[in-house]
């Protein structure tokens, strides 16, 4: 347990100057949550880079590289803050209940050695193989006998597990669940910090409590937890950037988080495309003095996300790592299943995990005032595009469609839940407070 705790603490400390370099105004829960997520992403990049230059992973080597990143980020973080000052979130008694819920999750995630099939057949397996190799084992990834481990999947999560193992001195899957807890807590802290800018401490703390269950994954040891955290934070930051007059720091946060999400799972890559399309669409239809084409160029602010996604994409292309969904002829499979799309959609609806959650989300969207709905078009669009991508993936799957849906649909819908729950909650809460858009609302007393 000590190694996992030290790893989480070191990642947070490493991420602190990175967060401040991205956004000098970051405070409170947002600063802590973003610091852990950036630290986790930075450790992945360090281990990836060390492996690419064909050096064997050792703890002193990784520590030196992390120190270099820490120093560089500290220098960058010294620049003066720009933009509107952001007040830190004020605590509320409901935050204690959130802490209680997250403690429950931590107990669940650390009940035993990681038990999920996908942990020991995919994420944990790769981490363990790489640890013994002292770097990414391209021979293992290239072997046709190992395609079951989804060798094309990005490596942020396995390399984070390896960092814990390096600190531990050997492989142990007993306490790796703590990383899942840290990713979830990071996402909750960011959401709580962002909510505090838009609503009262009471509603912000209630939202934190609601998201404590939606920002964490019950699939312990898989990449779902990291993807929900990075992806959810990315969508929320880009939303903030679009709302707050193109807040440059929020763009940087959004793009970097999105890039790390793309390094968690292939669905993170799909999210990157979905966010780019949604940003372009929202910017295109935005009222403004500049030309539509100039507004469309807003999407280029996401370039850091593509820069972060590129290394793994290039590596997996050069090592010819196959993607199962692209195997054979995906287009012909898609065309063949298109006539049955209504049956497939019906099956997806009957197999929807947490149907009450999605029903309440839909009702909330319909009940909220039209002006509030218009303000949240970006998140609605991202969620819709994500769901559309999932449906297309099912149509093109080389696997048995029913089996594929049964084994993945609940995980996929959970990936999209955090941002939509955040915005629907805020729409309803702020409408109740008699204000649809209340920046820095916590400066005012509760109703």
């Amino acid at each position, binding site marked *: 347990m000590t190694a996992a705790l030290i790893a989480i603490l070191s990642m947070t400390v490493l991420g602190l100057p990175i967060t401040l370099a991205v956004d000098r105004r970051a405070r409170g829960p947002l600063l802590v949550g973003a610091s852990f997520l950036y630290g986790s992403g930075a450790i992945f990049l360090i281990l990836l880079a060390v492996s690419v230059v064909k050096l064997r992973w050792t703890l002193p080597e990784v520590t030196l590289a992390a120190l270099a990143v820490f120093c560089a980020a500290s220098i960058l973080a010294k620049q003066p803050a720009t933009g509107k000052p952001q007040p830190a979130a004020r605590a509320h008694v409901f935050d204690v209940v959130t802490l*209680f819920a997250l403690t429950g999750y931590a107990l669940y995630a650390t009940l035993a050695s990681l038990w999920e099939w996908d942990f020991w*057949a995919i994420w944990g397996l790769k981490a363990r193989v790489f640890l013994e190799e002292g770097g990414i084992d391209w021979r293992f990834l290239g072997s046709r006998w190992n395609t079951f481990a989804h060798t094309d999947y990005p490596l942020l999560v396995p390399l984070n597990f390896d960092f814990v193992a390096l600190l531990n001195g050997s492989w142990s899957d007993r306490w790796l669940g703590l990383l899942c807890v840290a990713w979830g807590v990071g996402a909750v802290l960011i959401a709580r910090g962002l909510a505090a800018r838009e609503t009262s401490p009471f509603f912000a703390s209630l939202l934190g409590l609601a998201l404590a269950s939606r920002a*964490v994954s019950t699939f312990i040891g898989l990449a779902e937890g990291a993807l929900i955290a990075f992806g959810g934070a990315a969508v929320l930051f880009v939303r903030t950037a679009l709302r707050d007059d193109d807040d440059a720091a929020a763009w940087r946060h959004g793009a970097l988080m999105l890039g790390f999400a793309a390094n968690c799972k292939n669905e993170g890559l799909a999210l990157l495309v979905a966010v780019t399309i949604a940003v372009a669409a929202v910017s295109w239809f935005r009222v403004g003095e500049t030309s539509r084409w100039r507004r469309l160029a807003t999407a280029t602010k996401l370039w850091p996300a593509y820069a972060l996604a590129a290394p793994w994409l290039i590596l997996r292309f050069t090592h010819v790592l196959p993607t199962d969904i692209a195997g054979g002829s995906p287009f012909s499979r898609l065309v063949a299943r298109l006539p049955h799309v209504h049956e497939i959609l019906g099956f997806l609806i009957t197999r929807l995990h947490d149907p009450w959650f999605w029903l*309440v*989300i839909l009702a909330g969207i319909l009940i909220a005032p039209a002006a509030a709905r218009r303000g949240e078009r970006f998140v609605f669009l991202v969620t819709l595009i994500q769901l559309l991508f999932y449906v297309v993936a099912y149509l093109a799957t080389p696997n048995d469609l029913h089996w594929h849906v049964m084994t993945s649909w609940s995980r996929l819908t959970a990936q999209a839940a955090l941002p939509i729950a955040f915005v629907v909650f805020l729409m309803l809460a702020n409408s109740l407070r008699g204000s649809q858009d209340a920046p820095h609302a916590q400066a005012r007393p509760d109703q």
Partner: protein
Amino acid sequence: MLRRALLLIALLALLVVCIKPRMLQILFVDREAAAREMNGSPDRLWPLYPRFLEGVRAHTQPGDTIAIIAPGMAWDSGYSYAYYRASYFLTGREVLPLVTPENEKLPQNFRAARYIAAFEMTVRMPAEIVWQGEGGTLLRPVWGAVPPAGRPNPAGGNASPLHPEAQR
């Protein structure tokens, strides 16, 4: 007034459906019993199998190739579990499957393996027994040796490596 009531109901409903009671229940359940169940959950089918694989790991070296023989030898009837689980416990070695997901046999992997790890199966072939225990046997095949009387060499010709030599 009605709209306000609807907003309030929707907000409360969202709060309720967002919270997963399991996250709070875990604080009050017998966690030791839950941990025991979780620890055993991946290997419910064959509880001894992880310990057998640990034994195989202890008796082989990194870089060795190991083929897995397990009861059933059909992908969806346990072989996928046996193969994936072995891959996790035997990292550093190359674990070779003897059956594809379509249940086609892979005799070339049988021949290519330096070791045969047979769990809850008896394998009759010319081989040195490297280690026995935890419900299984680790064998090093002796290719070219005469097989036991009346038994064909499993690697010879089109003979299946698993039948009839490998029997539960």
